[in-house]
């Protein structure tokens, strides 16, 4: 931004926000210009969302002041904030599923007072769509829309209320690469028209791609603000994490062996009783990582559940080392050497109120000799595992729920990998983890690969899938759209993720 001419739109001074036991924002100073796209970068838990919840009126700061266009403001609710032109699109959308787009957009407004003039609202919405390139049918019901479209509704909601300052909290998490591009086009257009965009993210590449300036938060404090054009990925990562980070993943070249996990024509229903898997076929070989790319909610969760024995299939076969395990139940899968790094770490991965020793032996206890458990011996073994897998815990006797997300994941890895699995089903294994824990988890997966495991890696993080996998399949609406090598261009994978099959290729 041209520093002299641009006005400062937002200024937050010395913001402090405490939660029980956490200092989420520690004397934060933050400012953004009019017409600027300003990224707020930081690891999970750095305090980004908290800071912006304060700016959007959801939380009140314990200390500090907010100025908009030079004037002091005090917000008591999101209504106050929006009245001053501050709108926020939250990570979890706030939309009424059974209502239409237009009804959602006018929800909570007090104009018109009594009679709804939906036609007029729809016309205004269409005008905004036109102006900012946000395509969505105002008469559609929310439940009919993709997450990308729902996000557009949220943006329209803010614009309809006259937002001049738009906060987007990790907006790309639910989008395909193409949708990300479209979003970026929209955001740039809005910035050109004088809107201020605050873009929260922990992804370095996208921050560098979209932002004019970047403010980095770490552990509740501002580390610095940099011009995106001058910044490098390495520098940003160092500021974000507080140490050097290796981006290059060393993948040992290994020859894959025979197929271990074979899935054929697999069908299953979702919790809602609609088909989630519509005939999925693939195999994973020894010493191989098969990546499953796709926007979440396209059957990945159901797939992982069926091939770990947690969900019944309605058709097709699952074989492990030639043994037919279709609908055989979780125990049979465990006995066959299938280990599971589940999507829901806390509820499926561990018993939160059980101590670490118990959690580590949750599966292996069956193979211990005798009827009674030798806790003393198990505790010693647990200590060793915690050390080996680098789990930060005071001792093996604390409850698992007291660990942070990254350490819970390492605890799960310690349990699953200590039994030398034949198959590993890893679902979003690094989602929500900080850079350090992410690195560790990826290393462990590659280690298992070298040791001979057949690994199915389901992840939303396309970079991760491309970096770790030997082959990639892409899921869309319960089907496999195609298989690509890991060095396939992102655009090609993106097309598959959006449901467009490639010519002359198929799964």
């Amino acid at each position, binding site marked *: 931004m041209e520093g002299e001419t641009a006005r400062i739109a937002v200024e937050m001074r010395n913001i402090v926000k405490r939660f029980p036991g956490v200092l989420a924002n520690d004397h934060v100073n933050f400012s953004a210009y009019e017409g600027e796209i300003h990224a707020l970068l930081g690891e999970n838990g750095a305090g980004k969302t908290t800071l912006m919840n304060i700016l959007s009126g959801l939380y009140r700061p314990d200390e500090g002041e907010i100025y908009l266009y030079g004037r002091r403001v005090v917000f008591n*609710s*999101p*209504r106050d904030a929006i009245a001053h032109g501050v709108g926020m699109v939250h990570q979890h959308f*706030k*939309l*009424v*599923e*059974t*209502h239409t787009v237009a*009804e959602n957009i*006018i*929800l*909570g*407004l*007090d104009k*018109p*007072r*009594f*009679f*709804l003039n939906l036609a007029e609202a729809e016309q205004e919405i269409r005008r905004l769509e036109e102006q900012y390139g946000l395509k969505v049918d105002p008469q559609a019901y929310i*439940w009919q829309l993709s997450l990308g479209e729902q996000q557009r509704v949220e943006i329209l909601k803010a614009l309809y209320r006259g937002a001049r300052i738009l906060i987007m909290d990790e907006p790309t998490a639910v989008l395909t690469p193409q949708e990300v591009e479209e979003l970026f086009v929209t955001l740039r257009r809005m910035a050109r028209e004088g809107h201020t965009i605050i873009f929260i993210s922990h992804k370095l590449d996208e921050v560098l791609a979209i932002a004019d300036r970047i403010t980095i938060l770490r552990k509740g404090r501002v580390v610095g603000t940099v011009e995106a054009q001058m910044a490098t990925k390495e520098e940003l990562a160092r500021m974000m994490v507080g140490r050097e980070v290796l981006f290059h993943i060393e993948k040992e070249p290994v020859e894959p062996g025979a197929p271990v996990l074979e899935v054929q024509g697999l069908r299953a229903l979702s919790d*809602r*009783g*609609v088909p989630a898997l519509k005939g999925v076929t693939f195999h994973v070989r020894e010493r191989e990582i098969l990546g499953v790319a796709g926007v979440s909610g396209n059957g990945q969760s159901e797939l992982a559940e069926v091939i770990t024995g947690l969900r019944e299939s309605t058709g097709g076969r699952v074989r492990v080392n030639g043994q037919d395990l279709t609908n055989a139940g979780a125990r049979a899968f465990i006995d066959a050497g299938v280990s599971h790094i589940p999507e829901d770490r806390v509820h499926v991965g561990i018993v939160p109120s059980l101590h670490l020793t118990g959690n580590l032996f949750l599966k292996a206890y069956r193979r211990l000799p005798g009827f009674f458990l030798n806790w003393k011996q198990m505790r010693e073994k647990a200590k060793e595992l915690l050390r080996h897998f680098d789990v930060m815990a005071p001792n093996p006797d604390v409850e698992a729920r007291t660990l942070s997300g990254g350490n819970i994941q390492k605890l799960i890895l310690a349990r699953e990998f200590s039994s030398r699995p034949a198959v590993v089903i890893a679902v979003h294994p690094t989602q929500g983890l900080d850079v350090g824990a992410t690195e560790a988890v990826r290393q462990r997966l590659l280690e298992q690969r070298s040791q001979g495991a057949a690994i199915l890696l389901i992840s939303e993080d396309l970079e991760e899938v491309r970096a770790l996998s030997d082959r990639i399949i892409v899921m869309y609406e319960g089907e496999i759209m195609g298989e690509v090598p890991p060095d396939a261009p992102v655009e090609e994978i993106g097309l598959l993720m959006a449901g467009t099959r490639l010519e002359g290729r198929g799964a």
Partner: protein
Amino acid sequence: MDWVFISATLIAAIRAGTPILYATIGEIFAERAGVLNLGVEGMMLMGAVSGFIVGLKTGSPWVGALAAMLVGGLMSLIHAFVSITLRGDQVVSGLALTLFGSGLSALVGKPYVGVPGVRFTAWKIPLLSRIPFLGEVLFQRDPLVYFSFLLFPLAWYFIFKTRPGLHLRAVGEDPATADAAGINVFKLRYLYTFIGGMLAGLGGATISLSYTPGWIEGMTAGRGWIAVGLVIFAFWDPLRAALGSYLFGGVNSLQFGLQTKGVTIPIYFLQMMPYLFTILVLIFATQERVRRRVGAPAALGIPYVRGER
């Protein structure tokens, strides 16, 4: 065609259906806001007895009907307090309200059993009442019936076509989103539970001041429960509620009518129909997609806790 038989049946259906219609629309309002109130039967009984007594004492059925609405509304506030403020179990609280209403109405009504009271009388609407057939069926009724004719289309319009209606639906569908949009979830839930109670009370008074004037213990005879079932039958839509109310209101009279024609259907069978139908709809409506289509409020029966992570 036996026009006399048909018009007699229709008139009976409207007269018997009106109390049910009031209660059903009231419950639709409460449930649209996300509050399941199974105390309808109790509120109707209290409405019936207080409407009768106040009508008798003041000599005016109008004052009686207003008193019944007030009493029904006040009773519903007990349920509102337990389920909205204390976040208690709505099923238990509603059942308790019904038991409470049955007992209390019997107690206060004891001296009035069989006492002749006041009643609403029929108004013949000029001109309209002279339309052949329709005039007799629709426009020679009493004011409570006319008011219900106005109420159900207005309730429909209000719920689906106005801003307060939009907010009402949002509160029952997704209170967290409504809250984020600046809508006061607690206030609206109290308000519509109260309105639901008032209409249940009015439904009770319609029985004791219009349909079968007088007071007898337990005179609502399960109509409150029929209303609860009809809400589901009607998919939370006042227009369908009217259809359902008149349908099931007509069941009794049809029974007698058919007997004179030599057709016998056991009355118990016909009376069972709304419940049977409700069970069928419930089975059908447990499916997510169906629930969406029929418009069951997603947050029905679930207390709202602010800022839950």
